[in-house]
């Protein structure tokens, strides 16, 4: 009697271990690469295509999928929204598990994480063959490339600009173009606004929203031709301590806070109410995105909401080239059909419809007269795609998007606690630590 039961028990344990190691063996490496240079690749495919998309940007891609499906009887696209916080892990585990979707449409900053590990198909030739290749957003293309090959295409743009309520500005006798040349002149303008219009706040920023501040404040640093990260992908370190521009930008925001030029809410705003105060006319200057400053605003408000690219402390202009890239996965079930859809999303009519969902096209040739009429605040970023930048690093999420990010800690310590040198020193060591930890 003992033997049989113990045997059963042992069998069970072995079975458990066996399944374990089997699963392990099945998920050791990466999936076989796709040859995109084959003849007939990307033409006449049938069946279905699965796309994972960001839950945050799903309206845009649903629209594109619908227009594509209408044009193709025998090739249908299905879109699966994935919550942002889970996206990278889910993609990684499914690559490991060997069952991937055809396309991923995700935050472009995540591209390097996967392209350095050969998860995406090399589509360099396909992209170079596009007639409008040169009008594609430089920032997006930068993140889609690795070692001079291309592994993705841009899809959606989200560019940060400085918005201003020109009605309120006019009441204080100010003009946007004049005062927005540098942070210095903007600070002056804010003081004027505070005097003339005491019932509104001159400026606002979301002091507890790491990602949103990364989106809107980093360009102020880039406008002066420097960045917080130094070095090439795979060999990077922090560039904070000793960086006068970073110091100037921190001081600018500290001044805004100390002189009460921003609402009290700036201390706690974590992005969930971002832009709310601007849209309700309580704030004059709002570094933000087209979505929160225009698309979500009342129709009557939009004309008075104008924008310029973000300036640096003493001049210069820059914008955060954000948004989504679309990448074809190695091991995709229907790669040819997938490229057909990807190609479709780059069409002008698809791109031009993006501002309806609050996003920007990634083709600089999208801005024709009709576009300018319907989406006037989108014209500026779209015609300046070349001035868009976004850092290419494997650590972007950890450095800028998480609530535990050193970026957020630096801003809060420098701006709200007033300890700029200390904030910068701490950020330097954290940046170094994280960048080293995420090297290949």
């Amino acid at each position, binding site marked *: *009697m*003992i033997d*049989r*039961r*113990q045997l*059963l*028990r042992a069998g069970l344990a072995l079975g458990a271990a066996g*399944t*374990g190691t*089997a*699963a*392990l063996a*099945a*998920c050791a490496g990466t999936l076989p690469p796709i040859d995109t240079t084959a003849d007939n690749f990307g033409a006449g495919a049938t069946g279905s295509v699965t796309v*994972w998309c960001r*839950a*945050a940007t799903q309206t845009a891609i649903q629209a594109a999928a619908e227009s594509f499906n209408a044009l193709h009887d025998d090739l249908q696209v299905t879109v*699966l*929204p*994935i*919550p*942002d*916080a*889970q996206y990278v*892990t*889910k993609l990684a*585990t*499914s690559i*490991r*598990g060997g*069952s991937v979707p055809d396309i991923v449409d995700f935050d472009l900053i995540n591209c390097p994480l996967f392209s350095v590990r050969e998860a995406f198909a090399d589509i360099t030739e396909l992209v170079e063959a596009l007639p409008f290749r040169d009008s594609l957003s430089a920032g997006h293309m930068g993140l889609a490339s690795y070692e001079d090959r291309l592994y993705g295409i841009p899809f959606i743009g989200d560019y940060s600009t400085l918005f201003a309520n020109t009605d309120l500005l006019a009441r204080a006798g100010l003009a946007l173009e004049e005062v927005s040349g540098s942070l210095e002149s903007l600070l002056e303008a804010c003081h004027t606004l505070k005097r003339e219009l005491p019932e509104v706040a001159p400026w606002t920023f979301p002091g507890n929203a790491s990602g949103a501040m990364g989106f809107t404040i980093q360009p102020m640093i880039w406008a002066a031709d420097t960045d917080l990260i130094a070095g090439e992908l795979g060999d990077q370190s922090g560039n904070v301590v000793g960086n006068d521009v970073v110091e100037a930008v921190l001081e600018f925001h500290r001044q805004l806070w100390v002189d009460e030029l921003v609402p009290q809410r700036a201390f706690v705003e974590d*992005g*969930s*109410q*971002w832009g*709310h105060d601007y849209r309700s006319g309580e704030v004059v200057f709002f570094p933000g995105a087209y979505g929160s400053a225009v698309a*979500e605003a009342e129709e009557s408000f939009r004309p008075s909401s104008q924008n310029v690219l973000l300036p640096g402390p003493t001049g210069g202009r820059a914008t955060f080239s954000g948004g989504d890239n679309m990448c074809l996965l190695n091991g995709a079930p229907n790669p040819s059909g997938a490229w057909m859809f990807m190609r479709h999303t780059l069409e002008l009519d698809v791109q031009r419809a993006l501002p309806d969902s609050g996003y920007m096209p990634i083709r600089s040739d999208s801005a024709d007269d009709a576009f300018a009429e319907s989406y006037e605040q989108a014209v500026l970023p779209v015609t300046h795609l070349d001035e868009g930048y976004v850092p290419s690093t494997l650590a972007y999420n950890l450095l800028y998007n998480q609530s535990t990010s050193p970026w957020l800690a630096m801003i809060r310590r420098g701006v709200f606690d007033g300890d700029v040198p200390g904030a910068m020193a701490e950020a330097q060591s954290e940046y170094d630590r994280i960048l080293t930890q995420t090297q290949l």
Partner: protein
Amino acid sequence: MMSRPVVKDRRAVPYAVLGVLFALIFSLPLLWSIFRAFQPNETILGTPAIPELFDLTWQNFSVFLSSDAVMLRPVLNSIVVSLSTAALTAVVATLAGYGFSKFSFGGSRLAFGLILLSMMVPFQAILTPLYLLMNSVGLTDSLLGLVLFSTNFALPFGIFLMKNTFDTVPQALEDSAIIDGAGTLRMLVEVLRPMIIPGIASSALYAFLTSWTEFLGALTFLTTEKYFTLPIALLNIQVGTYGEVDFGQLVAGSVIAMIPCVILYVSLQRFYVQGLAAGAVKG
């Protein structure tokens, strides 16, 4: 159920006072939240004067309950998953509890110990290995996989409970039934049923509750939106996945999440309380 004589009257007043006080402490926040769910977002996010607090609306619930409700699906998914988990847990735990209690076989102590050990493992620790395992047999991104996962989560407690329940069944009862020729199945279903129903109800209820609020596992294993359960939907609302955070919806969703728990608990509570007490105390 009384095991003590009538209590002295001089403690009646403190009892009443404390009773009412604590009843309020424990129920007011819940009632307040329910009330909140009916307030429009302007009230929730603003600082209105007292009279405005009573401007009520159904709008927060419309996203969950109206005919074109996008959130109705998660609610239904949660219901299906939780009920299935409850049923499966009840069956498996009862069988196992019976086996561990009344049968002796080699390795039963070890097996029981292993099951208890699994209670102490924070499942966040084994989340990714578990994902890999489930993926290899196709259980990820499916409600069935979630049901099995939730069942496993609730099993140790259920087995513990049922084993203790069976332990209290006198051997004589079984012996006489065996003499009458009862097989195992008949034994369970006919003979022992009245004695074990409280335990079964408790296990089922416990499994339902743990499955209903389970969210990290669901978040990890489910990819397709159509399978999402209510806690995931609530998390998405809270982090503003679909745009700005809608606190009204968050509270309304929480209230909806609250209701089945309360209803089930109140109607089954005599089983639950006894089952928990009997099961745990014997430990």
